[in-house]
């Protein structure tokens, strides 16, 4: 490991480019040998740097459960220079990949527990592999509740997956939007409202949150009121970073580095810094 320059990306090939929401595309990269940085696989919660050569690289949470030889999926919202360049790419184009990086959801520890998955907007992407993992090994986990929020119905990243998720045994899927048209059958309002409506019980339940900082902050407050202990509240954080391996220094929350100590944290690790993350 130490003989390898971790800043060198491996060249990968885009095998799938799909529009999944306004300004959001799902990219699939063929997981050829060497793309996994010598690690056996990508785990739910981990991330990778994707290079659009010429525009730079940026970190993205993986959005699919990955098997060796499978396809690495990333949901990319067009926002800055790198993501704009990525959006201009098509199937067959080359990108650079550095990963897998960071820690992952301790899925083994979650086994036997109920899971409450709370996602908002583009931030819900890293939750997809968690849901896929649970679905694939359904008997090993308790009940699964999925709460997804987005600006409008079209902004829900995984509309295509929802029918499938609804059919997972012992799974509740709750959706909400900020604004909608008449066709929308689900809730309208913030994810915190949705939490109050569904009123999850903390007993034997692990809550996993991922989304914009402001959503995490308030959703966490609601969970605290409901009686979830810090060890039962997990979050994946995002921060501006340039190396992903603890060198560039900029993703710190206190002495914690999001890239190497995270991006998955339980609230007993980062609770006190949550305000400075806002």
């Amino acid at each position: 490991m130490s003989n390898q320059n971790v800043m060198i990306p491996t060249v990968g090939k885009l095998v799938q480019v799909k529009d999944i929401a306004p300004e959001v595309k799902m990219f699939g990269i063929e997981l050829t040998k060497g793309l996994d940085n010598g690690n056996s696989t990508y785990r739910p919660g981990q991330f990778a740097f994707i290079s659009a050569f010429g525009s730079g690289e940026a970190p993205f949470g993986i959005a699919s459960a990955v098997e060796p030889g499978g396809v690495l999926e990333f949901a990319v919202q067009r926002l800055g220079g790198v993501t704009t360049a990525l959006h201009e790419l098509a199937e067959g184009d080359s990108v650079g990949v550095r990963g897998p990086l960071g820690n992952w959801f301790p899925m083994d520890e979650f086994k036997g527990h109920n899971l409450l998955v709370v996602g908002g907007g583009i931030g819900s992407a890293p939750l997809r592999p968690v849901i896929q993992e649970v679905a694939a090994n359904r008997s090993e986990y308790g009940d699964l509740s999925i709460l997804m929020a987005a600006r409008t119905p079209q902004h829900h990243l995984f509309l295509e997956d929802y029918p499938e998720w609804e059919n997972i045994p012992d799974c509740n899927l709750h959706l909400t939007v900020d604004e909608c048209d008449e066709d929308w059958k689900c809730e309208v309002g913030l994810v915190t409202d949705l939490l109050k409506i569904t009123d999850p019980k903390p007993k034997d339940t692990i809550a996993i949150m991922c989304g914009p900082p402001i959503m995490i902050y308030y959703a966490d407050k609601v969970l605290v009121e409901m009686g979830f202990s810090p060890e039962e509240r997990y979050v994946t954080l995002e921060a501006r970073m340039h190396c992903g391996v603890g060198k560039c220094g900029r993703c710190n929350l206190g002495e914690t580095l999001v890239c190497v100590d995270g991006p998955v944290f339980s609230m007993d690790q980062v609770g006190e810094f949550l305000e400075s993350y806002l």
Partner: protein
Amino acid sequence: MITKKIQEYASSLLADQVVDCVIGYEVGPRRTTRPIFVDQQADTDRLVWNQNCSHNLTVYLRQKLNDTEGRIGIVVKPCDSKTINVLGAENRIDRDRLHIIGIECEGILEGNVKQNADSGELQRRCLACDLTEPLDMDYMIGGSIERKNLPDNSTSNKLSRWLEKATADDRLEYWLSEFDRCIRCYACRQACPLCDCPTCLFEREDSIWTGSSATTKDNRSFHLGRAFHLAGRCIGCGECQRACPMDINLGELNRVLAREMEEQFHHRAGYTVELSPITTILGEGR
């Protein structure tokens, strides 16, 4: 004593709730004069006036006006008041929310901020200063003083005169050596009260006109570009050069452009509430 008068007046402004905060100068623990923000009457005795009050405090105005609801009191030297005119012309500040405390100024000394001892010489801009009192103010402390036309024997002036006569090659050599030292800390930009684009053109992620590396070439593009963006706006407070840890002769670029603005467009930045002619269309007869 000007210091005393500033303290008293600031105190009354805060007591009468005319302003939320007074921006002025204080002397720090290392005997260094520096900016201070006073929002409580009890702290007004920290305010001072001396010949080391070099900072152009208007650099803080925009942020401070954003952060507060009320009015801001600010200690302003005659020269700094030009900045307020430019900021006003560009609609960057709301003049009505300012309470300008004008100060009689006999000139600021060279070399006061960095720890090196002051030379006792007046700054070059002060030798050339023609303002006896601020161009715009709400209250004046001290009387208008008489301006003497002082001879400019500064090293900086000698250098300017040499540069004017130098050959293109000599000029190039001189400036490459200057720009080579730049570490792109952007202190020049940050210290400039007029340089406050939300995202600097030279730092945009997609900027392809100037590289972000601290190479001589990119440094030069940055400094020339920045100087140009200030053409007709720079009032010559010299904060960029004073802030520069590498002592790059940035003031010279601004002086050259100011001279050209005066010669080509008869425009002197900040003397009136007027936009730089470079952003307006050609006048009649031109």
